[in-house]
């Protein structure tokens, strides 16, 4: 049975699944990279993604438009992170506690609204989700075509976002300023520029990206919204940001690594290898802990990560 894994069609399907599965965590992790580069640790990604997924589902259900659903997901993510930003940047509430509160809020609201919105129906309704959008010509390339170029639009967007976020962070003045306030906000404040405003922008961008990540889970790839359907992806995105040492390229690598594990376990289950499926499901979390333990370096984290800026210091 093991040799089945190495057949060409199976390799292609595992790799294509890797790319697809990477989409939501990559979108979310890229957004969080920007937020953390500005010095804000948003631990509320799980709740933000969940609300994004829910809003995208409801948006599509109500309007019948997948595009509107995706936008609703991103907008909901931005809204959630605006609450977060107000609490941690303006009110300077502990970031970890606020992030947890956001997770609870996302889980509570999405479950409650799902129950009340469809109280009459016995089964939760479904939406038509976005299919693959093959790219003409490129999809025909052997191996690469089916792996890379028969994906959904949100997947293309996620991978396109990698160089864009990199360019923004390292080649524009806004990126330089953002990295500056993550390392030493006073260096920007003493030049008369707003630290708080930039942090708000970074956090809200991060939230919108997490909302998009959530949207992929519903309108991007599934007909239903299921309570707690993010199932730890928000937390994995945080792990990926750390494992990716706050650089988009490495973040991409880490995201692909974790989604490969996931794709592989799906395939292994599919061909019926006799392993308790719980072990396979727990694998990404075990690997997450192991990879952080092996890295052992937090030196590359933005120096002011998690610290509110107070001018007097």
């Amino acid at each position, binding site marked *: 049975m093991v040799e089945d894994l190495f057949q060409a069609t199976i390799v292609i399907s595992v790799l294509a699944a890797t790319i697809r599965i990477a989409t939501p965590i990559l979108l979310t992790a890229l957004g969080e990279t920007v937020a953390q580069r500005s010095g804000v640790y948003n631990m509320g990604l799980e709740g933000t993604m969940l609300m994004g997924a829910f809003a995208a589902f409801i948006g599509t259900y109500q309007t019948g438009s997948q595009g509107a659903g995706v936008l609703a997901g991103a907008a909901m993510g931005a809204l959630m992170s605006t609450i977060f930003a107000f609490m941690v940047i303006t009110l300077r509430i502990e970031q970890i506690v606020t992030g947890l509160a956001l997770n609870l809020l996302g889980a509570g609201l999405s*479950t409650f609204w799902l129950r009340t919105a469809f109280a009459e129906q016995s089964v939760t309704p479904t939406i038509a989700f976005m299919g693959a959008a093959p790219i003409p010509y490129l999809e025909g390339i052997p191996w690469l075509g089916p792996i890379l170029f028969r994906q959904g639009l949100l997947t293309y967007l996620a991978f396109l976002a990698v160089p864009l976020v990199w360019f923004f962070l390292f080649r524009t003045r806004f990126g330089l300023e953002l990295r500056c306030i993550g390392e030493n906000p006073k260096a920007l404040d003493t030049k008369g520029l707003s630290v708080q405003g930039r942090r708000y922008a970074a956090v809200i961008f991060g939230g919108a990206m997490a909302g998009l990540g959530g949207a992929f889970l519903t309108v991007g790839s599934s007909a239903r919204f299921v309570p707690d359907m993010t199932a730890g992806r928000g937390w994995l995105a945080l792990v990926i940001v750390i494992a990716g040492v706050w650089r988009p390229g490495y973040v991409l690598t880490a995201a692909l690594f974790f989604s490969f594990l996931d794709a592989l376990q799906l395939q292994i289950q599919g061909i019926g290898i006799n392993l308790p499926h719980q072990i396979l499901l727990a694998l990404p*979390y075990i690997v997450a802990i192991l990879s952080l333990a092996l890295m052992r370096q937090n030196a590359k984290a933005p120096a002011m990560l998690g610290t509110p800026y107070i001018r*007097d210091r």
Partner: protein
Amino acid sequence: MTPDVMSAAALVDRRRGWRIERRADPSAVGWLVALLLAALGAFILSGLLLATAGASPLDAFSNLAKGGFGSGRALANTAVKATPLIFTGLATALAFRARLWNIGAEGQVFAGAIAAYACTHALDAAPALLQMPLILVAAMIGGALFGGLAGVLKTHFKVDEVISTVMLNYIIAFGLSMLLLKGPWSEAGGFFEQTAKVAVNAELPILIDKTRLHLGFVIALVTAGLMQVVLAHTPFGYEVRAAGSNLRALAFQGTNTTRLVLLVMATSGALAALAGVSEVYGVHHRLHAAAIVGYGYTGIVIAILGRLQPLGVVAAAILFGGLVNGSTLMQIKTGVPSTLIYAIQAIILICYLVAWAAASFRIRRPGRTTPSGEIGRAGHG
């Protein structure tokens, strides 16, 4: 602890002349006002939430209150619901007091329940007087090991405890499922993912007839009282509080802070584990995920609302126990899904955090000096 530790600083308002300053310590009155504001805010927001569901907020709330606190029996059952929350709240409060962000009470509850069940599974029909202490000790060891694991990951491998505890929560949930679903502990001939019932001797005794109030509630109250004394009056409590304010200074004076971190994480895990005992042996009398899921995360809310004080945790746990207990009546009477309370819990937490932070700001007019808690600034001039 949460927002108030941040130092006072002037936050200059855009409006001319007026300014908003942040004070170091909100007064006791400020705290009460914050609590009232938080309650009001949570009431209004939850009411709006109910309105979005097309339900009458007043109807829902009154049933919620009646179901939670409306009768002696309701109160007894509220105490039952509060019991695991007291344990997880205390566990979280202890770790947070030392500025260790243990989000793992959830998994530590699982670890405790698994360890305790392993013990009774082996014991079978031993007398209650022998079983009870063994169960408690086994659970606490299980929770301590699982909490300590996150501690070791932090002290020896530099893995942030927030991430590791959350990952461990997921891992152990899958672990339990492995034991239960066609696993070694699954009920013989059973269809569900659960164990067989535990021996009657292993059940925590019911305290009041015709209620479900069991011994666990008393153990929870005693534990809270003990923790209050330990925090305020013992060298270990001293170290926990010192670590919460300045771990570095403690290390400079020769205290072994690695050992302290491990000890706090293990103790926190042991406390959380007791929630697993109270649910498995006090309420459900069998081990399955639904019996123990969620208490760890709610415990974080409880700890924060209780200002990380043991007695505050008890009060907050009873409030939330009432919400959980009342939600059943609310669902029956008004048709509002009982899942509402999870949203309400999050709303209460957010309102509390915001009100608490807002209470530490105050508006000051120029020219009028008011006493402030930051004489320390004199050194900067």
